[in-house]
């Protein structure tokens, strides 16, 4: 058996289990379903999980690093939970270094809670270490100090089993954290949010789920201006359900960069707004095409978070004769239409300006970086009488009647120009 005990910080007044303990146990449930609160610590049994998490060494490193971030005071490993608790109180991490009785014998009595009631008497009879207590005659100990002390001692040495009430993951996730200092800039909230994300990802893993939306909230302190609300929040969405802490943290960072706090914040909250079941993917040696597509979606999402989804565009072709209506740019968050337009049967420019640009005309000849030579045309485009934009007095027609030409400019290559309303020439695109 491989037991780990994580000590949560606690002052003697707070009732058990403390918030810190709950935070740790929420996170610990991702490693094993056998997680319990034992006095002020969280204990978990990890023997069956070592292989899944890459062996004892890797598991220990991960548990150590993440529990430190979550605010744990110490970590100890032993063959049973009571021994792990004694070791973590004594500040010894590895309970497998030497035989357990040998390690425990050297610990002072106060690591075992059951001895506290009899601390004075025990010190008077010369018991300072657990080893001293163990060497006393068992009958006498039961007679003098009662049964619970002996049972607790036996549980620590592993000769009597200890039963636990296993914890279950909660149905929804809502966690809060008081920040060490008041934060005035939104990106600085991320440090606190990361701790909550760690907890969230643990909770998600224990439920075999992923999030598609998380809400980060913050509470302003009482010393704020009158018009400022007491709390603020930010909801971040992802296209695919995920419980990848790196991705969530990056997304939050990008979104927080745009947020301006109206007053200093002293507390952050994290809520899993939309939780969906996440299918586990089995690991593979071969590069995975499906995984790669998902990774791409994540990259795009991250870029869109910084530059804005309206700046990440994909083209949609429509069947329209008018050049400016043939192609639309759809932002990332809009679904493209299912129906595919047929490509136009005639040549078309590879670049089209957003707005046609009026050309200088000299001696009836259009100029764009020199006089234009018309090669092909006219190509009459007429249509759009059905197309009206705007309401009421501002309504306007999008009807066009233009003669398009392929023109050659001495310096700008091959252009797509049109003549409209007599002598007005416009540049609309280029074959470039």
């Amino acid at each position, binding site marked *: 058996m491989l037991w780990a005990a994580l000590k949560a910080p606690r002052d003697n007044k707070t009732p058990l289990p403390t918030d810190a303990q709950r935070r740790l146990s929420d996170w610990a449930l991702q490693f094993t379903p056998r997680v319990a609160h034992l006095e002020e610590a969280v204990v978990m049994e990890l023997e069956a999980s070592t292989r899944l998490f890459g062996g004892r060494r890797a598991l220990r490193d991960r548990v150590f690093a993440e529990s430190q971030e979550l605010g744990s005071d110490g970590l100890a490993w032993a063959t049973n939970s009571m021994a792990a608790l004694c070791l973590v109180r004594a500040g010894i991490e590895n309970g497998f270094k030497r035989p357990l009785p040998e390690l425990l014998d050297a610990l002072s009595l106060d690591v075992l809670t059951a001895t506290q009631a009899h601390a004075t008497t025990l010190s008077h009879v010369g018991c300072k270490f657990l080893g001293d207590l163990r060497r006393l005659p068992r009958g006498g100990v039961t007679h003098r100090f009662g049964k619970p002390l002996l049972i607790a001692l036996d549980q620590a040495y592993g000769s009597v089993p200890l039963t636990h009430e296993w914890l279950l993951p909660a149905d929804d996730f809502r966690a809060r954290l008081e920040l060490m200092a008041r934060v005035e800039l939104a990106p600085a909230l991320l440090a606190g949010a990361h701790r909550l994300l760690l907890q969230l990802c643990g909770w998600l893993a224990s439920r075999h789920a992923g999030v598609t939306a998380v809400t980060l909230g913050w509470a302003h302190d009482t010393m704020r201006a009158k018009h400022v609300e007491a709390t603020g929040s930010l909801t971040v969405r992802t296209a695919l359900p995920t419980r990848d802490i790196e991705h969530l943290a990056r997304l939050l960072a990008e979104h927080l960069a745009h947020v301006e706090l109206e007053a200093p914040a002293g507390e952050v909250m994290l809520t899993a707004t939309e939780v969906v079941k996440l299918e586990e993917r089995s690991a593979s040696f071969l590069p995975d095409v499906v995984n*790669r597509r998902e*990774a*791409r979606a*994540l*990259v*795009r999402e*991250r*870029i869109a978070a*910084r*530059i804005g989804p309206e*700046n*990440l*565009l*994909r*083209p*949609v*072709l429509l069947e329209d004769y008018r*050049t400016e209506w*043939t*192609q639309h*740019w759809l932002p990332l968050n809009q679904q*493209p239409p299912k129906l595919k337009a047929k*490509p*136009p049967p*005639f*040549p*078309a*420019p*590879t*670049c*089209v*300006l*957003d707005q046609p640009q009026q050309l200088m005309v000299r001696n*009836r*000849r*259009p100029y764009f970086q020199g006089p234009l*030579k*018309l*090669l*092909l045309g*006219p190509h009459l485009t007429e249509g759009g009488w059905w197309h009206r934009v705007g309401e009421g007095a501002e309504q306007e027609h999008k009807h066009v009647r233009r*003669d398009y030409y*392929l023109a*050659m400019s001495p*310096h*700008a*290559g*091959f252009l797509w120009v049109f003549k409209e309303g*007599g*002598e007005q020439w416009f540049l609309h*695109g*280029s*074959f*470039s």
Partner: protein
Amino acid sequence: MELQHPSQNTAIPMAQPLPTHVAASLWRADELRSPPTAVHPSGWAALDAELPGGGWPGMAVTELLISQPGTLEWRLLAPALRPIVAAGGEVAVVAPARPPSMEGLVQDGIEPDRFWRYRAEEPARRLWVTEQLLRGNACEVLIAWLPQVRQEQLRRLQVCASGFEGLCFLVRPAHALKDSSPAPLRVSATLASDWDLRVRVAKRRGTVHEQDLLLPAYAGGISRVLTPELMHPSRLDDRPIPIEAHDAVGSTQSSARQQNPAAH
């Protein structure tokens, strides 16, 4: 056992040379050579002959030096992109100098559903997007227009590109040619007469490229409608600018209107 002299290990001159694709994957222990990278043919035999490895290199940035960005990029690159897109590859463009139009590009084989356009104005943002795409391996072809970029930023992109499996083109102004660059391949391109592009490999691994290449490049399916005489428009006489009957009427009316105030 009798020891043999080490000279027995030297390469024995082969009666006939290996086929190119075999030679490309064969490394002889006695020669220094950079590891072979994926190379995509450019679409022109003449250009392929000048490019190291016979095409545009993957896993590295390629600089395109163009005096007027927006005038010839798709004409130069479309032939290389067509097979990549046909095989399911995605094309990403970062801050193109002129808005690309799928209406024409689709005729060069670039499908709209595999095309992504990233709009970014500030130079720092363009660089950031380019770097993210390179790091994330998020497309098969990346074309980024970077009019202002410093040498250390280019070096950073080049390092990112070493893990990028696709093609990466950075479009820079032609005057950048006088500055040094960490890109292993730099190609300058200008418009020549008619439909030709004048292309020169300004920097490559190997000997210096002296002779300019003239590549006939068409875009947007225009080659289908070009008559033999339109293939050489510079030889054509100027066609008169067409005048329509109603235009002429309109112009006399307007001149009449202009005269009216003078009469009053």
